[in-house]
C-alpha cells in the first residue's frame, strides 16, 4: 500500500470539509474491506484517507413510528443480528448473513457496501425492494436520494466529492406484506453472488397485490428494479400464471454479462429461478399477515 495522509475527523462537518478540500485525491474510510483491498492492488492511490468511523452518531439501528433508520456506519454483522431489523426488515438481516465471512462482517459497513457500488452488492437489492432512502451530507447540506437513483455504474454513485452517506431509512412496512432476499453463488459462503434477487409484496384484505417491488443484482452495471415485472403484479391476485409472467418480465429486465463467475445464459436462468422462489416466499410471508 502506498503512503497517504491520514485524517481522523471527530465531527461530520470536519469530515465533509476534509473530503471536499482534497476532492478526487481523498477517500472516506469506513470498514476498509473494499478500500484497503483496492489500495493494496493499486487500483486506487488516494493521497488523503479520511477515517469517518470515529464520528459519533453515524452507526446504529433505530425504529420510530414504524420507520427504521440505519446509520451508514452500522456494521453488516450488527444488521445480521439486529432484533429490530429481524422483525421489521428480515430480508435485510438475511442479506447481511451472506456478506463475506464473520471477520469481514465485523468490519464492513452497510454504507460502504452501497458506496462501493458493486453490481453484486449484497445489501442493495433488498434496499431497492424495500424502497429505502439514502441521506447524504455534503458541503451544500443534506439531500435524500432513493436508493434506486444512487448507483450510476460499477463503482460509481451520485455521491459528489465531499459527500458522505450518513443514513439509510425505510418506511414502516404495510401489515400484509413480506420481503425476501435470495442469492446464488458457486460456493455457498465466502463467494460473491453471481445473481441476487429481492422481492417485496403488499396485499390488501382481499389478497390483491397492492405494491410489488423486485430488485436484481449482478445482472446489469448497477443493481436494478424490474419495473415491468412489478407492473404485471400490481392490482392482481397472485396465481401461478401471474407469477410466471412477472418472472419472464424480470428475466427480460436483466442484462447479464459473462465473466469469471458465470456465463450470461446461466445468470439469466438463475434470475428466473430466484425470482420464482422469491415471489413464492414473499407471497407466503405476506399472506401470513406479519411482516416477514
Amino acid at each position, binding site marked *: 500500500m502506498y503512503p497517504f495522509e*491520514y485524517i481522523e475527523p471527530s465531527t461530520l462537518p470536519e469530515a465533509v470539509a476534509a473530503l471536499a478540500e482534497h476532492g478526487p485525491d481523498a477517500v472516506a474510510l469506513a470498514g476498509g474491506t473494499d478500500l*484497503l483491498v483496492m489500495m493494496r492492488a493499486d487500483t486506487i492511490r488516494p493521497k488523503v484517507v479520511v477515517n469517518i468511523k470515529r464520528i459519533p452518531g453515524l452507526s446504529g439501528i433505530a425504529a420510530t413510528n414504524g420507520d427504521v433508520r440505519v446509520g451508514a456506519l452500522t456494521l453488516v454483522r450488527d444488521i445480521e443480528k439486529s432484533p429490530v431489523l429481524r422483525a421489521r426488515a428480515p430480508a435485510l438481516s438475511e442479506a447481511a448473513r451472506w456478506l463475506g465471512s464473520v471477520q469481514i462482517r465485523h468490519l464492513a459497513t452497510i454504507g460502504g457496501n452501497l458506496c462501493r457500488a458493486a453490481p453484486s452488492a449484497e445489501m442493495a437489492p433488498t434496499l431497492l425492494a424495500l424502497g429505502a432512502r439514502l441521506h447524504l451530507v455534503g458541503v451544500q447540506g443534506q439531500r435524500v436520494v432513493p436508493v434506486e437513483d444512487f448507483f450510476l455504474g460499477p463503482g460509481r454513485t451520485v455521491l459528489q466529492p465531499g459527500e458522505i452517506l450518513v443514513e439509510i431509512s425505510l418506511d414502516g412496512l404495510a401489515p400484509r406484506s413480506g420481503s425476501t432476499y435470495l442469492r446464488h453463488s458457486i460456493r455457498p459462503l465466502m463467494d460473491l453472488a453471481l445473481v441476487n434477487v429481492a422481492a417485496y409484496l403488499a396485499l390488501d384484505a382481499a389478497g390483491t397485490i397492492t405494491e410489488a417491488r423486485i430488485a436484481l443484482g449482478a445482472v446489469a452495471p448497477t443493481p436494478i428494479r424490474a419495473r415491468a415485472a412489478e407492473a404485471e403484479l400490481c392490482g392482481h391476485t397472485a396465481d401461478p400464471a401471474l407469477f410466471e409472467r412477472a418472472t419472464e418480465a424480470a428475466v427480460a429486465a436483466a442484462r447479464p454479462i459473462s465473466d469469471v463467475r458465470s456465463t450470461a445464459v446461466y445468470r439469466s436462468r438463475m434470475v428466473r429461478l430466484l425470482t420464482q422462489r422469491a415471489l413464492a416466499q414473499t407471497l407466503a410471508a405476506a399472506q401470513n399477515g406479519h411482516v416477514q
Partner: protein
Amino acid sequence: MKKLMLSLAVNGQVYDVAAFPHRTLLEVLRDDIGLTGTKRGCDDGDCGACTVLLDGLPVTSCLVLAVDAVEKTITTIEGLATAGQLHPMQQAFIEHGALQCGFCTPGLIVTAKQLLEEKPDSSDEEIRAGLAGNLCRCTGYVQILAAVAACRDGQLAGQTEAP
C-alpha cells in the same frame, strides 16, 4: 507523511509504536511488536490467517489500519493461554490433530473461541458457517470441526502446559 505514535493494547499489555498510517494492524503486530503468531496469508481478507479479536470480535487484521486499532483491545493467539494453561480451544486442536503446517491455526482458534463464547451451543452447521472465512490447505477441515465440536461439548481429555 510522518509516523504516528500509536498506543496499542495487545493481550493486556500496552505497546507504543511509531508507524506510518498506511501500516496494517497485521504488519504492526508482526513486524513492530514481534507477535508473529498471527499469520499473513493472502493480505486480502480472504484466508483468515490474520484473524485477531478487536474489542473481542474476530476481524481480518490485514484489512485494519493499525491507527484504527488505537483505543481498542486486541487479542492475538499469544493472548489465549493463561497461567501456563492452554485455552480449551488450543487443547482441542491438539487432541484432535486439527493442524498440520499450523499456518491457519492461530486464526482458526481465535475465531472458534469467540464463536463459542458468543453462542456456546452453536450447531455443527453454525460452526461451519462461522469458520467459512478461515481457509486451511492441509487438514481438510474434518479434524478442525471435530475439535471445535469437542470444545463445545466439553469433551477434552486433559490440559497441556503452555510452551
